[in-house]
């Protein structure tokens, strides 16, 4: 069973200490500059507003070269696994939005030159909404979306 193998594998990796080693000297720590964090984008109350704040345009072309892997019905809206894969060439950024969240933008990933058009994370969704992936390649924006249903559980929430 793949799940059992995966779990036993985990046991091995923890035992051999393959997990991260601390970076103790400040010299090696990548400089994290928060100047790039866009308050306007993360506080925008609609998708176009967020995209404009990020990229100075909300012109997006629908693309079938972007695939979003997300559940049809989220088990729990607090932890929705989402992966975006795109075969568009020259991708420099992938953004993830949930259009019914009060502030739709959840994340923007700026990709380095050798980095593939793929990101995976887990997001919070307040209610049933479209998960929208916005891909920037060159100076053009492309998008795709997938509906994810968020329900109220029966066991008292």
């Amino acid at each position: 069973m793949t799940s059992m193998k995966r779990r036993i594998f985990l046991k091995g990796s923890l035992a051999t200490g393959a997990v991260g080693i601390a970076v103790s000297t400040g010299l090696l720590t990548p400089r994290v500059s928060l100047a790039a964090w866009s308050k306007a984008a993360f506080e925008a109350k609609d998708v176009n507003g967020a995209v404009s704040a990020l990229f100075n345009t909300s012109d997006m072309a629908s693309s079938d070269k972007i695939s979003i892997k997300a559940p049809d019905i989220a088990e729990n809206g607090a932890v929705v696994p989402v992966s975006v894969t795109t075969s568009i060439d020259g991708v420099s950024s992938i953004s993830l939005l949930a259009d019914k969240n009060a502030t739709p933008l959840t994340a923007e990933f700026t990709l380095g030159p050798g980095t593939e058009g793929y990101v995976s994370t887990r997001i919070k969704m307040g209610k049933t909404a479209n998960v929208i992936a916005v891909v920037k390649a060159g100076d053009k924006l492309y998008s795709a979306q997938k509906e994810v249903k968020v329900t109220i559980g029966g066991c008292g929430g």
Partner: protein
Amino acid sequence: MKKLLTAMILLGLLGSFTLSAQATPQQDLAEFRDYFKNRFPKTPFNDYINGVYSIDAASREQWEEIEEFPPYELSISKGEELFNKPFANGKGYADCFPNGGIGIAARYPFFDSKSGKVITLESAINTCRQSNGEEPLGWQKGAIADVSAYMHYTSRGNIINVQVPNDPAALAAYERGKNHFYAKRGQLNMACADCHVYNSGNKIRADLLSPALGHVTHFPVYRSKWGGMGTLHRRYGGCNKQVRAKPYPAQSDEYRSLEYFTSYMSNGLESNGPGARK
């Protein structure tokens, strides 16, 4: 709500399976397994350790995504640190448990004839602390869940083999747990069995009800709902509250008995804690 309640009651009445009050634990176990075998003929026995994911492909896929790098790994690491840190008196958890506490979680719970109590892993953790001059940990979450998570992680794959010895006190504890499981309680007047036996595999609003067979194997559990790790007794309390019943305190005799019964019903299955659930 009334419609749902009526449906539940009707279904409860139609459910023809109840463990006989006169049966031995072994007979109970055989009947329990048979019931689920008939209810979910396609589910292999050991897959019940995966709860609702053994009977629903869509939620299984999400669970497997999360299992790629499950949040409980953070808890296991914390638990390992806590487990290895010596007490003020120089001793450690390893001194309290057989095999230094490694790979032994599936031996719990067990009935201790001397004290007349069901000993759970969490209770043993705190007994260890107190007998070494340390303050006991809270029962439901935090450090105790982390230590338990680590200890269970080292025990993954071990087969659950709870014994009910030929001791009237042990049998009484087992029966008390069994009664709790089948008794209706709370304003919603529902028993554990109503959801997890008679309606296992059915939906309650948007939730799919997990089968009671294998229920305890994956504890302690990281629940998305909790945003953290919690113990089995934390979950029992939550379930009691969900049917609007007053919960018992964690590690009370009532919940220890319930753990005793439900763990016995999971005999033969692999221990696979800690787990991730919604």
